[in-house]
């Protein structure tokens, strides 16, 4: 942690970066910290409680500005950063990534290849919570799943916290704001909610890195992160991509293989 603070302060004081996005102690749990001078770098922390996905801030031009900036990133965030890079949202010369590896060593990435190589060592596993709920859902039959989700969705009041928390929801105009035609109604209603979440899942196919930010952000605790996670788990092997790794041939839905398997087309 000391190393991280020092390095951050150094980067700022030397003017290597104009901003370091990291974590500081919050009331209940760590919260994002935006250091613009070496003093504030003293407040930086980085531990297992720091899972808030900071990648969400780095596509916000008004926030990061034109200069180079640094971000402290746990694995989940690193994966998001990789995906953002694949989607042409980041450029190497502007970004500097700091992380503390398992041995407590400070690591510094200046290229996406380094990040990809580092991330590759960690596999995406279901946590207890995910395993718990997903195994429950997987055990249900179709009608039960529908009931389950309708029940869950009925709590959704369309605050769009999921959208704001997701680093990959960086569209300047979201589909719910598109009104010619109005594909999905923006207000909370059973159908509008269902459509919104199905739409989210589809938009995340081949992109979601299962960081869990959306579920974490949901004020009414709908396990929406599991929808996109499950899709990721099912589609990644199907279409042969690895979340958080550069996709040479393009996104899962913008590319295809002659031998894509399917049994439902008559």
């Amino acid at each position, binding site marked *: 942690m000391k190393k991280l603070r020092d390095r951050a302060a150094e980067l700022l004081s030397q003017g290597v970066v104009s901003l370091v996005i990291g974590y500081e102690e919050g009331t209940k749990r760590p919260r994002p910290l935006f250091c613009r001078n070496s003093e504030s770098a003293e407040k930086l922390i980085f531990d297992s409680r720091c899972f808030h996905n900071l990648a969400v801030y780095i596509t916000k031009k008004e926030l990061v500005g034109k200069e180079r900036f640094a971000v402290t990133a746990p694995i989940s965030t690193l994966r998001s950063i990789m995906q953002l890079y694949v989607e042409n949202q980041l450029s190497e010369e502007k970004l500097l990534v700091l992380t503390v590896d398992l041995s407590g060593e400070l690591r510094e990435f200046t290229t996406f290849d380094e990040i990809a190589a580092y991330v590759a060592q960690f596999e995406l596993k279901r946590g207890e919570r995910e395993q718990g709920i997903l195994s429950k*859902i997987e055990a*249900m039959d*179709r*009608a*039960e*799943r*529908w*009931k*389950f*989700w*309708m029940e869950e969705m009925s709590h959704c009041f369309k605050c769009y916290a999921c959208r704001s928390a997701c680093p990959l929801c960086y569209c300047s105009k979201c589909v719910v704001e598109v*009104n*010619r*035609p*109005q*594909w*999905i*109604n923006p*207000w909370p*209603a*059973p*159908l*509008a909610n*269902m*459509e919104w*979440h*199905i*739409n989210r*899942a*589809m938009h995340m*196919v*081949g992109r979601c890195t299962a960081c869990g930010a959306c579920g974490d952000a949901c004020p009414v605790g709908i396990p929406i992160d599991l*929808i996109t996670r*499950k*899709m990721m788990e*099912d*589609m990644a092997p*199907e*279409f042969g991509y690895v979340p958080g790794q550069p996709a040479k041939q393009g996104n*899962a*839905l*913008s*590319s*295809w*293989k*002659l031998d*894509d*398997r*399917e049994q*439902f*087309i*008559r």
Partner: protein
Amino acid sequence: MSSNTDFEPKIIAFVCNWCTYAGADLTGTSRLKYATNVKIVRFPCTGRIDFLLLLKSFAQGADGVIVSGCHPNDCHYTSGNFHARRRWIAFRSVLDLMGVDIRRIQYSWVSAAEGSKWADLVNNTVADIRALGPYAEYQKVADYLEKEGYNEEA
């Protein structure tokens, strides 16, 4: 499931212009008869068919949906149908995860030469959906705050 004969399913078909639309034309020129329940919406290519349109169909009271285009390797645009295939693979599993009744979406490849296949496809799908009955489950959800909501005339 019991097939209730008095129920006439509403089915909407999304087809590509070059294969299935032409195939359906051939069904006509060969005077093959099929059920009136299906109405065709024409697209340049299956690659153009937005998954939201399928959702909207159900929301608007469709009991079933047909999506059909060129056979693999026959796409007028060489790969539109391959993109579509992937999209449907993903879409199906999303819907299945959410508990939407995916038996109500029938995907198919119908070439411009398969007029009879089109007739069979329509008839079979109509029979299947009739057996499944109306998709009330979804429409119930739709009938709340929605009707007045959608797409004000701009």
